[in-house]
């Protein structure tokens, strides 16, 4: 049997190791001798740092080693021979540890053979499993070996070795002073180490001998790794690495010359040390203990380590995240008329972003048309890729007709983005998977991306200048995945809590609240308009206004908002929810709630209750949207959301929703009452303050574990908070229930009572770190007050309301409190961002395996069953797999005929809605259709009795099976197991 696999994986594994001097020489394309780069003519100097054998960076120039042009030559390493060995800084610590644990004479690890045996086994065992060293063992080995003073093999005495950071080692002998161990000596010692000893230290001698961390030959990276740039003025500017390498070569040269000339020891030592410095900074320019190498301008050089490290380093910036083509970014603005699945794309952007489309027999006319329209007219095309992979830029084609005629199957046309294309849309910070979703393109005029308002919550977007990114998938696979997995409607339910993350926001909530409240009535004309806007006629073709009975017919037939809104629901919707403004009475009267705060939807009709945030808002786990999606799927949910928002938009436009200063103007009796409340609170506080100074424990009773002063603070804060609350209530009573601001807070659209109270009654206590404001001068916060004045006013209590305006001192206190809030958010975003990064990094490789276990990428089992029950939180009903309450409600409320109707279809619903996993279980698969069938016979005709089955021919049996299960009885010419089992059961 032959199979064809799609082969995309190219790299199987990557092995790490160190380069030996020999290897460096072997892979070197050129030995570099001269420290210069270019001569006067601007040509690279042979054997210089820019030697053409190291690869080329000039376009049009061929590499002298491989003969390729820039685009195909990946560069070649060179090398320099160092006059004296030099230590690699990164391994300085390791070298120290090793030096301390080996014999200075024979270089054996200073452990007895017996001790070694165990460790060696440990390391080998560990390597077999993890292919690296067991660092725990290594740690113990170092610790143990360091302790032994006399070599068990040659009897040599070990001396104490100290390091002078970063790369100088000394051997100390008691009362003899210390002597430097030169890299040459270190090299000698390390060279003598046996492979077996290295293994115990975790070093893998096949890939890395320890002495290779001491450079005798330095490899030079190819030029393309350190390209020089030519400025406009014609001046060449070299890369930081090149600068550093120039230094290295220059000093190396001088060192060699001095050694050859037999210069004094001291000078050679000095130059050697300088060479060590240059190579150290070449590797890492942030080593502690030595000054970083600097550019002429004083900027520290960005050398090898800096290139890799940190957020802007190669790993995090270029390897884990990559820049992409086919993307756009613009400001977003709202458009309630497009679906949540859509995004409005400016025409200007649509003409730049393209989709490669293969020309075939079916679309060739369309493609010809697009090519004819060219790159400047909207539904056009920018490029054509011919069958010989040549790319034709349509901008420069004089006669597009010729090109269009050339078009044949096998060509690729890069056509403009057009209506209906799928694109990915993203807003940073991308905190969860709903931060990138797929939308259908809708081309629009203007320069901003347009977004449906209800998708703001998952992106956490608003329109105060937010920008978003758009990416165009370029192949069929990506588009298919986007369509099936990434579309907005697939993300209405959040995996975080198993509820809808989408839903009405802000004005939609206010609107639905007004719309479904008791006194909202509409005449026939308005009702029809609303039905039209809500796509009722489109989505429910058999809907007829005559089916609704008007609430009154006096003076004309009037329909309630509740009735009209109900037309958006599916027929079997059954919900009971308490509204947000529920007064939480002791005994809930449910359906008969006097405040209309108990939402009752029975069989798709809103019988009672005012819909508000709890039943229509975003992130509400028991909302209407949640119920619809659970029963009818994502597409129906989207439909509901789209039509509801459109209907509600009209409602709010008719009603109007606004708020002005006069709405929070509290005056007359209520104002006096508020003032009285504040005065009382102030008096009470003064009384307590007096008690504190007089140490009167009857008035101010000390709280346990607190000092008197602390107790006072607690009490005053309490009193003032209560006063604010009372003032707030007074004000809100005065403002009444009709004010639009109150509607907003009551329905949960925006704001809360506290905000309203602050505007109309009193702003209240300003706090820093949860305490009244007590910083500033000695004994007082502001110079307006006397020293040690503890009264509310002096410690940041703002008696004014926002409408009335704050006094200077109050304003100042308010700014202090406000600043704390700002700082808090700034700090929070960074700390929580870091926590999230760590979490994602630690958890990201855990997935569900085919056996249902949760494992990480090493295939270690983390959980035997995901979440202990194998339930996906996204598909739960607020954490429970099955919401019994709702199902029971539905079972009881649905008309018996409706149930029968649905049960008749149920075998189908079962197999279609059920996931493949469920069907693979043979038991589970046969059961569901058996149940309804056994039920039905009483009502309808019994299907063929068992005997009749046996008379059926094989062919008929198979047909029956396929009809029943929707599965093939035959697969690859064989009867499937499922069929055989089914047949066996059937025949019995």
């Amino acid at each position, binding site marked *: 049997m032959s199979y*064809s*696999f*799609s082969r995309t994986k190219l*790299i199987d*594994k990557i*092995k*790490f190791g*160190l380069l030996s001097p020999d290897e460096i020489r072997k892979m070197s394309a050129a030995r570099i001798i001269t420290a210069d780069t270019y001569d006067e003519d601007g040509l690279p100097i042979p054997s210089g740092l820019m030697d053409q054998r190291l690869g080329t960076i000039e376009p049009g120039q061929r590499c002298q080693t491989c003969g390729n042009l820039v685009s195909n030559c990946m560069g070649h390493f060179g090398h320099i021979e160092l006059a004296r060995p030099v230590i690699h800084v990164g391994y300085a610590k390791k070298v120290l540890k090793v030096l301390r644990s080996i014999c200075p004479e024979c270089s054996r690890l200073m452990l007895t053979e017996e001790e070694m045996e165990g460790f060696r086994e440990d390391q080998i065992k560990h390597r077999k499993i993890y*292919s690296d060293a067991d660092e725990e063992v290594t740690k113990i080995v170092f610790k143990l070996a360091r302790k032994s003073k006399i070599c068990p093999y040659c009897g040599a005495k070990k001396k104490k070795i100290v390091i002078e950071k970063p790369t100088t080692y000394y051997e100390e002998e008691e009362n003899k002073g210390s002597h430097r161990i030169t890299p040459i000596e270190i090299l000698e010692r390390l060279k003598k180490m046996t492979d077996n000893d290295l293994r115990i230290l975790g*070093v893998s001698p*096949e890939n*890395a001998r320890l002495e290779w961390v001491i450079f005798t030959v330095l490899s030079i990276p190819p030029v393309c790794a350190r390209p020089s740039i030519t400025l406009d003025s014609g001046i060449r500017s070299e890369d930081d690495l090149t600068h550093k390498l120039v230094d290295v070569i220059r000093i190396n040269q001088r060192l060699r010359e001095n050694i050859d000339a037999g210069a004094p020891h001291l000078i050679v030592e000095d130059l050697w040390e300088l060479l060590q410095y240059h190579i150290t900074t070449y590797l890492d320019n942030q080593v502690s203990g030595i000054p970083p190498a600097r550019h002429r301008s004083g900027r520290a050089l960005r050398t090898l*380590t800096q290139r*890799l490290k940190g957020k802007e380093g190669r*790993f*995090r910036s270029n390897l*884990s995240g990559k820049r992409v083509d086919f993307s756009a970014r613009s400001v977003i603005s709202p458009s309630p008329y497009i679906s949540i699945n859509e995004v409005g794309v400016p025409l200007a952007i649509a003409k730049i972003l393209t989709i490669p489309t293969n020309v075939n027999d079916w679309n060739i006319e369309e493609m010809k048309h697009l090519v004819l329209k060219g790159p400047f007219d909207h539904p056009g095309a920018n490029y054509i890729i011919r069958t010989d992979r040549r790319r034709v830029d349509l901008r420069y084609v004089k006669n597009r007709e010729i090109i269009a005629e050339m078009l044949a199957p096998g060509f690729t046309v890069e056509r403009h983005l057009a209506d209906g294309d799928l694109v990915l849309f993203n807003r940073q910070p991308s905190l969860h998977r709903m931060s990138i979703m797929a939308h259908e393109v809708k081309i629009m005029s203007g320069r901003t991306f347009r977004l449906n308002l209800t998708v703001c919550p998952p992106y956490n977007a608003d329109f105060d200048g937010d920008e978003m990114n758009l990416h165009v998938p370029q192949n069929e696979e990506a588009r298919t995945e986007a369509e099936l997995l990434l579309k907005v409607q697939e993300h209405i339910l959040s995996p*975080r809590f198993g509820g809808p993350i989408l839903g009405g926001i802000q004005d939609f909530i206010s609107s639905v609240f007004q719309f479904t409240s008791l006194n909202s009535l509409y005449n026939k004309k308005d009702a029809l308009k609303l039905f039209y806007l809500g796509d009722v006629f489109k989505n429910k073709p058999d809907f007829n206004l005559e089916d609704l009975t008007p609430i009154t017919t006096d003076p004309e037939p009037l329909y309630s908002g509740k009735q009209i809104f109900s037309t958006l629901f599916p027929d079997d919707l059954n919900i009971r929810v308490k509204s947000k403004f529920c007064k939480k009475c002791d005994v809930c009267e449910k359906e008969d709630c006097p405040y209309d705060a108990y939402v009752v939807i029975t069989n798709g009709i809103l019988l009672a209750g005012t819909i508000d945030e709890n039943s229509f808002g975003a992130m509400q786990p028991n909302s209407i949207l949640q119920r619809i999606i659970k029963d009818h799927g994502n597409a129906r949910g989207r439909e509901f959301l789209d039509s509801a928002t459109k209907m509600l938009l009209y409602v709010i436009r008719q009603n109007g929703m606004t708020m002005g200063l006069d709405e929070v103007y509290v005056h007359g009796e209520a104002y006096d009452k508020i003032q009285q409340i504040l005065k009382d609170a102030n008096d009470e506080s003064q009384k307590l303050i007096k008690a504190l100074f007089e140490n009167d424990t009857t008035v101010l009773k000390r709280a*346990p*574990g607190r000092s008197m002063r602390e107790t006072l603070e607690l009490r005053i804060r*309490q009193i003032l908070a209560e006063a604010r609350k009372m003032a707030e209530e007074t004000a809100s009573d005065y403002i009444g229930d009709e004010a639009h601001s109150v509607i907003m807070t009551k329905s949960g659209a925006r704001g809360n009572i506290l905000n309203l109270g602050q505007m109309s009654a009193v702003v209240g206590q300003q706090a820093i*770190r949860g305490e009244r404001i007590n910083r500033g001068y000695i004994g007082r916060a502001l110079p307006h007050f006397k020293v040690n004045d503890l009264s509310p006013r002096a410690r940041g209590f703002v008696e004014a309301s926002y409408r009335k305006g704050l006094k200077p001192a109050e304003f100042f206190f308010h700014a202090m409190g406000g600043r704390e809030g700002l700082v808090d958010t700034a*700090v929070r975003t960074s*700390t*929580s*961002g870091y*926590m*999230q990064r*760590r*979490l*994602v990094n*630690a*958890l990201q*490789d*855990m*997935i569900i395996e*085919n056996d*249902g276990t949760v494992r990480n*990428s*090493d*295939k270690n089992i*983390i959980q035997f069953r995901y*979440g202990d029950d194998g*339930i*996906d939180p996204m598909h739960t009903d607020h954490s429970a*797999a*099955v919401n*019994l309450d709702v*199902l*029971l409600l539905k*079972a009881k409320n649905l008309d*018996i005929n409706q149930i029968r109707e*649905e*049960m008749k279809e149920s075998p189908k*619903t*079962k197999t279609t809605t059920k996931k493949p996993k*469920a069907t693979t279980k043979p038991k*589970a698969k046969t059961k*569901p259709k058996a*149940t309804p069938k056994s039920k039905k016979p009483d009502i309808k005709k019994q299907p063929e009795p068992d005997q009749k089955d046996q008379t059926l021919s094989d062919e008929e049996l198979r047909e029956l099976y396929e009809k029943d299960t929707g599965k093939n009885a035959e697969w690859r010419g064989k009867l499937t197991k499922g069929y055989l089992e089914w047949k066996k059961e059937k025949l019995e």
Partner: protein
Amino acid sequence: MVKVTQKIIEDKLDELKEDGIPEDLIEKIRGRVKDEELEEEQLEYLLNKIYINYHNALVETNEPVGTVAAQSIGEPGTQMTLRTFHYAGVEEFSVTQGLPRLIEIVDARRFPSTPQQTIYLEPPYNQSEEKALEIHNLIEQIRFEQITHDIDLDFVNWTIIINLIPEICEKKNIDIDGIPEILKRYKKKGTIKREGNSIIIDPGIEDLQSLQKLREKILKKVVKGVRGINRGLLTPTDDQKEWVIKTEGTNMHGVVQIEGVDATRTVSNHIHEIEKLYGIEAARNMIIKEAQRVLDQQGLDVDIRHLLILSDLMCVEGSIQSIGRHGISGSKTSVFARAAFEVTVNQLLDAGLYGEEERLLGIPENVIIGQVVPMGTGRVKISLDLDANLKILESKK
């Protein structure tokens, strides 16, 4: 219409059980259906729906549950408060909560910044405040500084005089006669005797400085109670059923040994302490509970399964591993995964010396080299059986 009988329900439930619906769910259904007067068809409909709902809710294989969990825990982090709050009540103590506490849990810090315990008591003691106070007095740690006016130094006789406050001693149920005995445990040398309400210690030192040092030391010594429990607070539980002691400071080991303490329910927010005393499974539960409490307090809705996977990962090695460089992320086998996280260069240097192998099994590794990530749809491979296709083609001809 026919109302369902108990027998029909049982039969149907058995059928459902055979279909792979878990026992506990069946149990729940039984409880709910029992009291409802359902018709047979309604019951049938209900169970049918339950079946569909349950199977729809099962996780699919290759689902990236780890990433989803991390995002589900991390994303609400942006909405949390940063400050240490005092409880609403007047007399309670401050508790770290919100983001700092969550980070503390995730980091598996050795010591929580506000260690706390809730001590449950065994029956006779948890019923009344007086009874509970007995235990409370045994537990709360009392230092000398709390029961003395001052500690004088007598430079003539080179002694230290501790002046006790008898009222407090009585209130805290401390036997003054027993104090010299306690002090002897700390100070083996010298003589200690009681004189009225003061204790006189003759340590046998005749040096001003060391005497002062000793005085400071004595001030901090624990007279009574469990070391580490700085303060205890007697409160009734939320449901008013019993009295519990909430403490500032923890010492699980010490508290559990006290008679009358219910060791099965007493908890501490010090996760390492729990691990040491009760083992890794208990620690796992504590991580879940503590994380859940933080999220609940902030009013954030996060499914418990995300926390389960987090704590299971932290505890899978048998000891608590932190999330981050020193824990999980640092002990990954992939060099690239470690290098892409933190301390990039050292990871690479070590990898070279140890001759490590990058097997490219995880996500970041494959992102780095530009390959398809092995999860979700990236783990599904399609193979085409050419022979079978040929056969089909031929049969069509």
